[in-house]
């Protein structure tokens, strides 16, 4: 990675702000606890997909709590994934200095030009920009340019952006537009984990219980904690003897307050120390409580406050033997994601569905899906057949007998025989008439069944519109609810790969749920060369019947009535707009 400090392009090893000393700033050396879990997750997401996850990402928290570690880890990981990624690591005051230098050299625009050339810009300690209106304005411009260009911005601050005094409102709003996460003070477990990591990294070992004793001291930040470890390590080296648990407080001095008041030692006779009792209890907890139960407990503690039903996890917790906890938790997380997706779709239709109980029960996903189905059905009815085309009005000729028999069989037993039914014939053979007639007959015969009848061009248009709105899943769900799906003129899908993909999945889903599929096309499936093989083969797998061309007798009839006029009409393959109330003026192909 061409990692840069603020200034000339430099190699990672010599970059002042992100040099060799900071190589330890990786995710695997970052201890995750309750106080920084969210920040860690967000940082991982950003590192894995810069510019796509949370942009900008603002990490804030007190001094020494690991903000710089986290953003350093983002840069490292992003570089691991994409070695060509251009990363710049700077700080708020360096940014200000760079800008001032650019202004002094008479090239203020150079600041923007320079910083535009990065894919990932990390700005540490933006609180130093307080009161620097000029730098803030430039930063705002830079932010706008970078965000528009899809480049990732990561910023850190020692307080919430809104709490930094004297900051441009527009800049604040920009910063808050991404994700703002905090890192808090480490709790006991985190402190102990950090101490163990650091002592292991430094190859220093301590007598059992020493690190526990240090971790029990209420150090408010990680730097102080590491400082205490340094002190113990130095003491151990100089004295040549290991520091004992009892020495910890003496070595670290009175500055570090102890958790136990002194009166305990004064009252409770020697040899019966309270700390020792705690150590006994700790040992028992660590040896007796199985890790898989802790893992499940963690998961319950994580999901329950968010309103998720965790009974499946609670049942697992009550088992005598360890289940496949990882598998269970993966399945649970996947179910949660699925429900979130369903909830988002429901909320997109009607925001009042957001947070509904039905979308919180991982054991009732089916019910949630049905609810979503109902929500979508109520809000967006399926396109239906035009009432003008009826089964009774279909011409019965010797050539069309096979097609009509197939149509009647499908109407009598939808989804049972001849599924899919594909009718093909040249323009004017009455395909659309048949398609809509089947739709109407289905509605009449099976009023409870949901009939979708639409042209392939409308299908494409709707898909594109749903993609624009970000509601593709909703669009899919709507059609998946159909019991009868009639798609007219599928030859219009040739070359439209995305729509074919969607149709492929929809087709499979509909077939799996026993829905009847009827398709019409100008050509037989094997002649639809612009259609994916997987679709063609599936269409061939049903019943394919030919609708005979009807131009000749009608043409002869028209020629006899008005010579010359019909030729132009049919030879131009002109289309006619049918003004049906429910078609909203959509163009449908002339069927005659």
């Amino acid at each position: 990675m061409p990692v840069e400090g603020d200034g000339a392009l430099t190699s990672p090893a010599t970059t002042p702000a992100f040099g060799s000393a900071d190589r330890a700033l990786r995710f695997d050396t970052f201890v995750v606890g309750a106080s920084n879990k969210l920040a860690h997750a967000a940082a991982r997401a950003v590192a894995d997909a810069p510019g796509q996850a949370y942009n900008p990402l603002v990490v804030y928290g007190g001094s020494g709590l690991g903000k710089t570690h986290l953003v350093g880890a983002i840069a490292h990981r992003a570089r691991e994934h994409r070695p060509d990624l251009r990363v710049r690591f700077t700080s708020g005051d360096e940014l200000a200095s760079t800008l001032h230098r650019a202004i002094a050299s008479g090239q203020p625009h150079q600041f923007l030009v320079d910083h535009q050339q990065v894919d990932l810009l990390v700005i540490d300690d933006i609180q130093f920009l307080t009161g620097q209106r000029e730098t803030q304005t430039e930063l705002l411009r830079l932010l706008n340019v970078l965000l528009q260009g899809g480049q990732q911005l990561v910023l850190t601050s020692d307080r919430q952006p809104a709490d930094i005094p004297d900051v441009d409102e527009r800049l604040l709003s920009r910063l808050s537009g991404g994700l703002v996460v905090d890192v808090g003070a480490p709790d006991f477990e985190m402190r102990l984990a950090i101490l163990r990591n650091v002592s292991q990294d430094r190859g220093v070992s301590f007598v059992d219980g020493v690190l526990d004793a240090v971790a029990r001291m209420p150090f408010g930040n990680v730097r102080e904690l590491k400082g205490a470890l340094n002190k113990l390590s130095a003491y151990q080296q100089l004295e040549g003897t290991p520091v004992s648990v009892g020495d910890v407080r003496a070595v670290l001095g009175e500055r570090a307050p102890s958790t136990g008041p002194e009166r305990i030692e004064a009252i409770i006779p020697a040899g019966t120390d309270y700390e020792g009792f705690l150590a006994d209890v700790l040992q028992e907890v660590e040896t007796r409580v199985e890790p898989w139960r802790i893992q499940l407990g963690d998961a319950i503690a994580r999901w329950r406050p968010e309103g998720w039903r965790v009974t499946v996890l609670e049942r697992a917790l009550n088992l005598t033997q360890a289940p496949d906890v990882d598998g269970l938790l993966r399945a649970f997380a996947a179910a949660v994601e699925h429900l979130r997706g369903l909830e988002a779709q429901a909320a997109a239709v009607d925001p009042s569905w957001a947070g509904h109980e039905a979308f919180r029960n991982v054991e009732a996903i089916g019910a949630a899906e049905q609810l979503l189905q109902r929500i979508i059905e109520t809000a967006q009815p399926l396109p239906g057949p035009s009432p003008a085309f009826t089964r009774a009005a279909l011409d019965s000729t010797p050539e069309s007998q096979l097609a009509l028999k197939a149509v009647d069989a499908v109407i009598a037993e939808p989804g049972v025989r001849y599924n899919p039914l594909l009718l093909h014939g040249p323009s004017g053979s009455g395909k659309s008439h048949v398609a809509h007639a089947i739709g109407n007959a289905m509605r009449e015969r099976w009023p409870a069944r949901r009939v979708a009848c639409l042209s392939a061009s409308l299908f494409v248009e709707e898909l594109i519109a749903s993609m624009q709105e970000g509601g593709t899943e909703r669009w899919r769900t709507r059609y998946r609810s159909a019991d009868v799906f009639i798609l007219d003129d599928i030859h219009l899908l040739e070359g439209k790969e995305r729509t074919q993909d969607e149709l492929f999945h929809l087709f499979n889903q509909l077939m799996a749920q026993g829905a009847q599929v009827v398709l019409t096309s100008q050509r037989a499936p094997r002649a639809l060369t612009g259609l994916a093989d997987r679709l063609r083969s599936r269409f061939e797998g049903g019943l394919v019947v030919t609708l005979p061309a009807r131009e000749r007798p009608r043409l002869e009839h028209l020629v006899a009535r008005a010579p010359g006029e019909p030729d132009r009409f049919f030879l131009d393959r002109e289309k006619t707009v049918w003004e049906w109330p429910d078609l909203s003026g959509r163009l449908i192909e002339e069927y005659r």
Partner: protein
Amino acid sequence: MPIVDHATRLITCKLVYYGPGRSGKTTNLMYLHDALPSEQVGSLTSLATRRDRTLFFDYLPVDLGTVGAYHVRFQLYTVPGQPYYKAIRQLVLQGADGIVFVADSQRSRWDDNIESLQDMHANLAEHGVDARALPIVLQYNKQDLPASLVASVDELSAALNFRGVPEFAADATQGTGVFDTLRALGTRVMKRLGAEEGGAGSSRAA
């Protein structure tokens, strides 16, 4: 068995101080209340009779704080020692994770000790609890009294400690042996964590 709530990371142990009336059970709790870090003990709740003897029970919550991954809380109870409060003793004993039997070392209370110990076993049996499986420690209180008045630890041990459980000489008014007693019981109770983890430790005895 202690209640382990993995979701809230909380381990709760119910420890009961049992023994004849006036043996010093409440004094044990009062000493602990004063001696333990103030932020870790709750207030000592005592419901006493007009004669200042325990009527229902004393209750002292002791919060050991976050120990390892878990928050550990001990709930210390005493039972009323007087024979006529048998029903209340049974009630308090229900769900106990461990028992401190506080014996009065005075020779004059010899029979009371034995009677109370038998009463304890009978009550446990009524709850369907096997006393052999329950962590129990013995405390011989009032060992500070003149030797002419009290039985020795050996004598008391021979009479009361037929199961060979941990035993401690104590002077609860001064605190001697009080913390050792609690520590011994607490540690033994914690050793039962996960022993019958079928119910995630949540099914208490009786």
